């Protein structure tokens, strides 16, 4: 990396006046972005600003340089010695960036985040320095022995340690009310993989007994239960444990008909999941926004720049083109054409990134890596995961779109 060619001070961080060329200079470094996207980004809330992705093709990005990242205050403090923080929150509010105009969401974000400009080497060093500092977790660290560039390993370990050390931010206990053994087994395995403790019962009466016996954070309820069905079960659960004080109720349905969602919500359910269950959809529905299929704030930021009608158009275009883009990936896989796979996956990823569609973006990136490496092993599974979230993602996009179309 040539540190002299792009010293950090050369970039005047006036986003209101920034030129395309300047944006290109601060576009995230390809490799770090790849490293970040799988874990570090979500766990530390570092993220390259996505506006760049919409303006420039990632392949044309310089191999060495700046990242514009959004980080928590805590992260900004950690990195302060090594990076240039672009003003405190108050200053950002005083000079709103064009893609981050003041809004209820933005106002919330400015209280706990900073905009940072950082290059790859410094970020790596800062992360390592941070690891040598005392931490709340007394679990000990093995990071000192890591080679400097092994960010993937850092990411992996940090992810695991964060998960172990962090206080639970998502519901822990799930009451699974499903009578069909296959559905029950698959749902239970997925839930346990996601870190939940699961109690499985087969019908409404067993569910009521279980709820009286032990606290459940979420009831995952098959709509088509024998006897008392999911709708009636929800009404009776809500009579005894009203919304707000009782568990969240998430329906499982294989129907996925228009109006089903409204029927579920009308019955008092908080959300619904279509079968066959996708582990990503399950994680997204049961947990916090960290698992969201679509990051609404990403769309919000973009909307602040291009306006609501353009966002609606963009969402429509994505939903319309999704099958074509996925078919291109599928076709490349069928032909075992790694180069085409890489390109097709890259296109899908770029489109998904633009709208903050995280799961699709993550799997597309992995597909792109496989295409790049020439090894297609595991690619069908990745494509299967993308397929598995399509319906829920489309519904979620539709929900977000509605907020911009009125």
């Amino acid at each position, binding site marked *: 990396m040539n540190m002299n060619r792009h010293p950090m001070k050369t970039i005047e961080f006036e986003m209101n006046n920034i030129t395309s060329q300047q944006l290109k200079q601060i576009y995230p470094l390809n490799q770090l972005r790849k490293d970040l996207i799988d874990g570090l980004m979500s766990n530390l809330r570092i993220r390259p600003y996505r506006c760049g992705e919409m303006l420039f093709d990632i392949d044309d990005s310089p191999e060495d340089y700046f990242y514009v990242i959004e980080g928590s205050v805590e992260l900004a403090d950690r990195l302060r010695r090594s990076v240039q923080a672009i003003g405190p929150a108050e200053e950002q509010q005083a000079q709103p960036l064009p893609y981050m105009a003041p809004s209820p969401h933005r106002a919330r974000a400015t209280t706990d985040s900073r905009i940072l400009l950082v290059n790859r080497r410094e970020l790596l060093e800062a992360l390592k320095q941070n690891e040598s500092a005392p931490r709340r977790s007394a679990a000990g660290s093995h990071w000192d022995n890591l080679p400097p560039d092994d960010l993937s390993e850092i990411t992996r370990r940090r992810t695991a340690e964060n998960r172990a050390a962090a206080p639970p931010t998502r519901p822990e206990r799930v009451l699974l009310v499903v009578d069909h053994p296959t559905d029950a087994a698959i749902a239970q395995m997925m839930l346990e*993989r996601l870190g939940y403790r699961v109690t499985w019962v087969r019908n409404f009466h067993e569910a009521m007994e279980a709820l009286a016996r032990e606290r459940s954070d979420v009831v995952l309820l098959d709509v088509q239960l024998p006897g008392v069905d999911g709708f009636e079960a929800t009404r009776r659960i809500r009579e005894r444990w009203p919304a707000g004080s009782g568990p969240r109720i998430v329906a499982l349905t294989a129907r996925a008909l228009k109006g089903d969602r409204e029927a579920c919500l009308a019955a008092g359910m908080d959300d619904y999941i279509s079968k066959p269950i996708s582990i990503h959809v399950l994680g997204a529905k049961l947990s916090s926004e960290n698992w969201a299929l679509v990051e609404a704030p990403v769309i919000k930021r973009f909307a602040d720049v291009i306006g609501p009608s353009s966002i609606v158009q963009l969402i429509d275009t994505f939903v319309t083109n999704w099958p074509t883009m996925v078919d291109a990936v599928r076709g490349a896989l069928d032909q075992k054409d790694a180069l085409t796979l890489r390109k097709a996956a890259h296109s899908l990823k770029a489109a998904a990134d633009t709208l903050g569609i995280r799961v699709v973006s993550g799997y597309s990136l992995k597909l792109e890596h496989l295409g790049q490496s020439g090894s297609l092993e595991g690619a069908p599974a990745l494509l299967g995961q993308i*397929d598995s979230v399509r319906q829920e993602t489309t519904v979620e996009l539709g929900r977000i779109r509605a907020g911009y179309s009125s």
Partner: protein
Amino acid sequence: MNPSNAAYPEVALDARALAALDDAIGAENVVMIIDTILGSVPAMRRQLRTAAASGNLSGVRHVAHQLRSDCAYVGATELCARLQQLESGAETGRLAQPVAEVDGVSAMIDGLLNALRGVRNVRALAA
């Protein structure tokens, strides 16, 4: 062709669905799920036939629904679509010939079981 398989309509399993399931719950658990399906589907088929023969459309709908769920997980998309038709027909009362419809699906279920046994055997050999 194995003579014992000759009467089975071929049921293709979408490898992507199984691969996605591998990814979600682990390959060893997928084998367990396949075993569960192999163990439960014959009984469900009997229930389906009994319900159809007695004109119990609610029963047809319920069992078809559960079978459809199994088919979706293992990528038996064609059979899944047939079961959805059966389920919808039973739900709306527009199933003209329930027994014949169920017989048609039943033959495909043989194909499904055969295909799943194949997957099971391949995985057992690979393990």
